């Protein structure tokens, strides 16, 4: 089986879908001739032509607005927002238009647009190239929100997103584009070729949306994570020596509450990990869901491990980043609770 990093896996998903479905078009700033600043669309314009892999003006609201119009005319646009931090000019088009079109027309019109955006920090990107705004989008009804943690899932989930009849916001944690970064930033980088999820089939396959994956079975505590934090959680669990169950949510909305709550009901403890800021973050929703469903089985208060409620500071990104130490400390606290 071919080995791919996450960039190659995303490229492969786009390639497969451009090949299979003449209605699929890619568009975004720098995605065409150049192949994207992160190279996710490398070579695709050469292969499928300029009209189907379209370089656009730097206008996120225009990119998404035009993609909606294309979607209404039967195309399946896959849009790249160069950094998730740049999605805000497109916010109205995503929230008021893309997410609501099917609803407000009682199903007569819809636009099946996939919006890809690299997110997350740890690349010295400062406060405008490091954000994880998934919680802003999970609060919007009518869009699906996905964040893969590895190349295999990235390809399979992106294919599912493009094939889905509803709009999908597809977050790509850019710190793990080239390897399964676990937060130990001083260690030598590990490539995806050394990881089982770097084995990616060349052809078409899909990973279903709204289905979480248990990446490590365990009995004492459930650690819930997604994106980069799945690998951080694994490092923290290895360090703590606790028999933890690690859940990779993969799709944040609509959420697979069954897998999450079944696990917590079994383990009685829950640690939620995300890189985004804490207050009103997605972890709050997860915590509330677990509390509402698993309260009588909980042995300890639910813990949230997150980025601090500050912008992502350029000079202090590792003090900001919720690394394995912070996660391991939370695991210890829930284990020690009386």
């Amino acid at each position, binding site marked *: 089986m071919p080995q791919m990093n996450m960039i190659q896996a995303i490229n492969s998903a786009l390639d497969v879908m451009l090949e299979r479905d003449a209605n699929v078009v890619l568009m975004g700033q720098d995605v065409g001739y150049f192949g994207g600043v992160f190279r996710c669309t490398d070579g695709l314009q050469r292969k499928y032509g300029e009209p189907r892999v379209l370089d656009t003006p730097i*206008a996120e609201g225009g990119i998404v607005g035009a993609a909606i119009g294309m979607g*209404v005319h039967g195309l399946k646009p896959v849009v790249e927002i160069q950094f998730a931090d740049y999605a805000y000019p497109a916010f109205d*088009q995503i929230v*008021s*238009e893309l997410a609501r079109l099917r609803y407000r027309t009682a199903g007569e019109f819809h636009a099946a647009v996939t919006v890809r955006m690299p997110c997350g920090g740890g690349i010295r990107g400062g406060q405008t190239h490091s954000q994880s705004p998934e919680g802003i989008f999970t609060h919007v009804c*009518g869009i699906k929100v996905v964040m893969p943690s590895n190349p295999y899932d990235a390809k399979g989930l992106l294919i599912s997103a493009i094939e889905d009849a509803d709009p999908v916001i597809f977050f790509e944690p850019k710190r793990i584009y080239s390897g399964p970064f676990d937060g130990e930033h001083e260690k030598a980088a590990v490539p995806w070729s050394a990881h089982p999820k770097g084995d990616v089939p060349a052809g078409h396959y899909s990973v279903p949306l709204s289905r979480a994956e248990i990446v490590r079975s365990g009995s004492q505590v459930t650690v819930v994570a997604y994106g980069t934090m799945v690998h951080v959680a694994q490092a923290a669990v290895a360090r703590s020596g606790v028999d933890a169950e690690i859940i990779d949510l993969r799709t944040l909305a609509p959420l697979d509450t069954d897998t999450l709550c079944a696990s917590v009901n079994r383990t009685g403890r829950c640690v939620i990990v995300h890189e985004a800021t804490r207050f009103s973050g997605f972890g709050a929703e997860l915590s509330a869901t677990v509390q509402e469903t698993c309260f009588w089985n909980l042995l300890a208060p639910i813990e949230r491990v997150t980025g601090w409620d500050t912008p992502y500071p350029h000079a202090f990104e590792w003090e900001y980043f919720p690394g394995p130490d912070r996660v391991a400390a939370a695991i210890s606290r829930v284990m020690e609770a009386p």
Partner: protein
Amino acid sequence: MTRVSRLHIPRPPARPGQTPDFSYLQTSPAGAMAQPEVMAAFTDMEYLATGLVRVLDDQHVAVGPWNPHLEPDELQVGLRHMLLTRLFDQRMQTIQRQGRISFYLRSLGEEAVSISQAMALRPDDMLFPGYRNQGLHIARGHSLVDLMCQCLSNTRDMCKGRQMPIMYHWQSGNIFSISGNLATQYPQAVGWAMASALKGEDRIAAAWTGEGSTAEADFHYGMTFAAVYRAPVILNIVNNQWAISSFQGLAGGEQRSFAARGPGYGIPGIRVDGNDFLALHAVTTWAAERARRGGGPTLIESVTYRAAAHSTSDDPARYRPKDDWQAWPLGDPIERLKQHLIALGEWSAQRHEQLARELDAHVAECWKQAQNAGTMTEGPRLDPRTMFEDVFATMPPHLLRQRQQLDQELVAATKDATPT
């Protein structure tokens, strides 16, 4: 001596109690503007962006190179649609005042824009209306009963009770949905047109927005994308001088016409008398042909006047002179087309009155029918459980649970209401 900068704050020329003053409005005589070749370079037609294309002169005669030479029966159809729009608006306004719908918004004084432009386009062209373009639906023959049922949010409502009144859509009639957020339809129409070109079709898109909304980023997104890809789209600005209480100067219309933004983007800009049915038809036909032949987008500014309040929630007497429409230099579009037809010997005051009576009776009959599908207080009502549908193509588990919860609430409420 210190020099200081000064903030210029645009003001309308007249406020309540003052005499209406439209001396700011620059017009051109009917027939004065040359008509360029359809595929001419935009640089060869910049005069169109600051002049005013007019066909009907003060004697109600069609003159000049933009005269579309429409047959009398086409003009009569246009007159009929405009009159129907006005009478429909009038009745819905009254119905709102009686508390039978929550909101309404008339297009009084600017009926020609939607009617004439829709008639100049092909039925398979895709229209992306603003909220005051009910005439597009009427010109394309959308049933008034359906429009009324939308305003009633009743069991026949195309939006299933999810939208405020007037936010219609019509998929089979190729009319897109009205959002409520302004100018969002501009880049969407451009995207639709880009898709049409990608598919090798000759269908074009047309979008409308008010002059006030040209200040929104979406207007500029639409213009940029249309210009960059030379999309087959007509982008319309309906300059009715007012955005609720904001005079057009506040949207940037004081220094230069809105149409003149077109050439700035490399797009032809045409400023047209928006109360002149013939001029609108000619300009739209020209722009549509240009788009269909691969010449790309055109920006059309229709100069008109919002004769009525912004909506039933607005009272213009608080910010502009009463009856100012009477002083509007470009008159009333219906009266002007009527006089033109009379001058042609193809119409009469008597026929006009008879038509108005017929149409009004038709509107009244439609209202009766619409109420059969339920009103805000009586008759059948949409099932509230349907509110969970169409959020997604397939209802996900959390919405199934919430629908079940609502269902329990509704059952409990019914039990409470049942006399024992």
